């Protein structure tokens, strides 16, 4: 790692994944890092944000001055509504998810694997956990994008050949954004599409628990 190597910020990661949203998409942003994406929606595209609590068509995070206690996103954070907004109850919010209307769910994760599995609800050895809407989203959305740090606090890899934690869903992950780059699980490896500035493929491989395959047109992560 060169001196200029610095892991991507959370805002950069959120902005980069938000740049993947296509015009007309209906998107759910999970608790944690993913909800940041609503501040980085591509301005040339119409993206409808859906939240588990039934808010359809919300926009960016609210400032303290703008916030009302009546409008929150799936992470219970105050957000603003867009002009197309509508509200449904919790059962209908998940009806939308299971029916397959979401183009993508962006979720946080503890771990993900080259086979498209991911785990984000329970840590080994711990009793209980937090599933939230993740299991419904993971099987309902057309695609699942993950936003997670590349390694744990102890420096262990979160991108693995096989998950070690109890799964949230199997084989559903289509894109993974970490603070080291943009990855696509291929079954046996992670294809590396974009890399954090200052890092080499070898740097990334050493911090990853599965084979990394750089694409021929590998480039630096840019927004």
């Amino acid at each position, binding site marked *: 790692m060169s001196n200029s190597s610095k892991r991507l910020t959370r805002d950069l990661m959120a902005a980069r994944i938000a740049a993947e949203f296509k015009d007309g998409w209906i998107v759910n942003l999970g*608790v*944690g890092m993913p909800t940041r994406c609503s501040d980085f929606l591509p301005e040339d595209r119409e993206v409808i944000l859906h*939240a*588990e*609590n*039934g*808010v359809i068509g919300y926009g960016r*995070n*609210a*400032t*303290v001055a*703008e*916030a*009302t*206690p*009546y*409008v*929150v996103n799936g*992470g*219970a*954070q*105050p957000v603003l*509504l867009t002009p197309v907004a509508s*509200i*449904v*109850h*919790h*059962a209908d*919010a*998940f009806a939308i*998810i*299971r029916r397959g209307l979401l183009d993508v769910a962006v979720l946080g994760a503890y771990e993900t694997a080259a086979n498209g599995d991911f785990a984000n609800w*329970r*840590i080994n050895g*711990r*009793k*209980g*956990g*937090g*599933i*939230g*809407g*993740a*299991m*419904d989203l993971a*099987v*309902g959305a057309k695609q699942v994008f993950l936003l997670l740090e590349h390694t744990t606090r102890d420096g262990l890899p979160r991108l693995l050949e096989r998950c070690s934690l*109890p*799964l*949230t*869903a*199997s084989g559903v992950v289509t894109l993974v954004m970490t603070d080291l780059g943009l990855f696509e699980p291929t079954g046996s490896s992670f294809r590396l599409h974009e890399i954090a500035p200052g890092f080499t493929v070898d740097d990334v491989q050493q911090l990853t628990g599965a084979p990394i395959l750089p694409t021929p047109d590998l480039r630096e992560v840019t927004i």
Partner: protein
Amino acid sequence: MRSKVVGSFEEAVAGVENGSSILVAGFGEPGTPHNLVEALYKQGASHLTLIANGAGQTREDGVITMGNLIEAKRVARVILAFTASTHPSRKTPLEYLNEAGEIEAQITPQGTLAERIRAGGAGIPAFFTPAGVGTEVTKGKEHREFGGRTYVMEEAITANYALIRCWKADSFGNLVFRRSQRNFNPIMAMAADCTLVEAEEIVEVGTLDPDLIHTSGIFVQRVVSIPDAGGRLEIPPLSLQKTAKNRP
């Protein structure tokens, strides 16, 4: 028309017996019936079953939550989408009691939870869903294929009580929710034998547009007005303080 309005939160939760099952609405701050939860805490019933999105946290601003009921060992069983805090460092009373085997904690995907409650309110005893198939939360449950895809059978949830918070209510119990206040409230009101409502404002029967009523009064048994709410939140919204950005 007999009015369903009662004079106090205490009166609203009167008669809740030990062993009752209670649906508690809310998602984050909006639509959370803080006043009824506090009244239930003071009322004293124990061996409760709580069904909610999450019930772990206790708060430091004096607001009584389900976490306090759990901490006081008044809860025998919970059905939740979150049985542990997202950060392992911030353990909740529920987690300690769960680890000690002193509470039964059933975790369920949030959409399955919502649909089980909706089914309960709709007289549907069981249904099939794809959520959680292939994970440990559906282990031992009946699976079945429809159209080449595997689904798991989940059973309905009903309860003795539902604790509900709304924006406006009339004295017949017709309810209107504001924005994301809606969340679990309408489906929980349908799934309970006795639905208790705290309302930010109570209006005359006949003043709410029938097309705008989110929960019909036939689902509601008792309504209580939140003093000094008058359409505003009487409790400082914690999530708002914590998360709203300070932007220019």
